[in-house]
């Protein structure tokens, strides 16, 4: 293995078009990182995405610590910004889906989820880091897992064993003969597919976004030779456009993830079907 673990760029820098080397297209290998510490085979290592994930947490906590440690009745600029973010999740997502009375309890969870995901996504366009942590399935899976466990536990707590089973399977007598089929589908859809799609939706969006950014970035560099300069310019414009688009998608995906989490919790708290 000759890969340099400290290498920042995801491609070879001395390869250009007409030089006789092929286009170093981005691929799955773009999402693999050599450990900064430890051994990849031992499951005991520390790599770039872990560093970014933990650094992101530190940044979020630092931001809210600075804003909310000693909050004032008349907020300063930082507190105002933080309050706007907090209020967006609290009112805009939690109260809207779960309701104010039942939702209050889940506000800290949803706020944390939103900002953790957003921060992990944001790493995608932050210079030097430039990798969306959520494009590694483990991170969305961990967060979706928390929501999933919360949802299952809440459903059992709220409806008891039989009620929860009815809730999971969408039991509805009026369906008549189709009921067994409908229950089977609902059971798989809710208990097995739902957590998977919840995690993959976020993962796939960020994965694809990062691949696109990589593609245009690498192309911009690769085309810098002869007539390729003109095409490199076009490609670089695409890099800028896609970066702006990613900025938007990052926020949207964080929003969607939390919105779905809220609607799952709401479904668990709601009266039986």
């Amino acid at each position, binding site marked *: *293995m000759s890969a340099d673990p400290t290498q920042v760029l995801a491609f070879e820098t001395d390869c250009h078009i007409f030089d006789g080397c092929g286009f*170093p297209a981005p691929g799955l290998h773009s999402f*693999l990182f050599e450990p900064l510490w430890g051994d990849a085979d031992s499951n005991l*290592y520390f790599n770039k995405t872990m560093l970014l994930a933990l650094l*992101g947490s530190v940044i979020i906590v630092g931001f809210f610590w600075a804003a909310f440690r000693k909050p004032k009745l008349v907020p300063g600029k930082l507190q105002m910004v933080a309050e706007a973010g907090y209020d967006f999740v609290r009112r805009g997502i939690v109260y809207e889906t779960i309701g104010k009375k039942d939702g209050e309890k889940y506000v800290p969870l949803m706020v944390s989820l939103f900002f*953790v995901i957003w921060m*992990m996504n944001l790493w995608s366009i932050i210079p030097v880091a430039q990798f969306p942590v959520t494009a590694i399935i483990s991170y969305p899976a961990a967060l979706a897992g*928390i929501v999933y466990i919360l949802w299952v536990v809440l459903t059992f707590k709220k409806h008891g064993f039989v009620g929860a089973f009815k809730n999971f399977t969408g039991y509805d007598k009026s369906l008549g003969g189709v009921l067994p089929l409908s229950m089977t589908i609902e059971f798989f859809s809710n208990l097995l597919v739902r957590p998977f799609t919840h995690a993959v939706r976020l993962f796939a969006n960020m994965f694809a976004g990062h691949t696109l950014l990589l593609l245009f970035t690498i192309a911009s560099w690769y085309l810098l030779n002869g007539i390729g300069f003109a095409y490199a310019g076009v490609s670089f414009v695409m890099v800028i456009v896609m970066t702006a688009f990613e900025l938007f998608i990052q926020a949207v995906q964080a929003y969607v993830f939390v919105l779905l989490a809220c609607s799952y919790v709401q479904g668990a708290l709601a009266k039986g079907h």
Partner: protein
Amino acid sequence: MNPLVQLAAEEAENPLIPPIPELVIGLIAFVIVFGFLAKKLLPNINKVLEERREAIEGGIEKADAAQTEAQSVLEQYKAQLAEARHEAARLRQEAQEQGAVILQEMRAEGQRQREEIVAAGHAQIEADRKAAASALRQDVGKLATDLAGKLVGESLEDHARQSGTVDRFLDELEAKAEAVR
């Protein structure tokens, strides 16, 4: 073949299979944020938001109270003003009535005085006339008897006085004058 592609060929596996260490770090990253936010920072800001809400609502309540008070004071003033107007109207009315009564009284008084004066004048004139008539009657009688005496040559004065001839004559004259009138 560049080393990265080689690496990919060696290690690329299904990207949907989550590596465990990343999973653990992901959970830790979340728990760090959740711990700080849920235990300390969000309760902090919630308290302040609640205080702010109360401050704003308190302000609104104060403003409401002030408005209510202003309204009641305004009504009080209006009532007082209306009362004052009413009172003024009443006084004016009274004054008018009193003025009318006084005028009436003064007129009556004037009338009365005028009548008194006129009556006194009439009485005076009557008295004067009577006095003049009686004096005239005496004088006429005396002149007539004197003249008759001179004509007859003796004094008829005492006789005429005794018999009342003159008076009778004059009465007859008066009666004639009355009849002519």
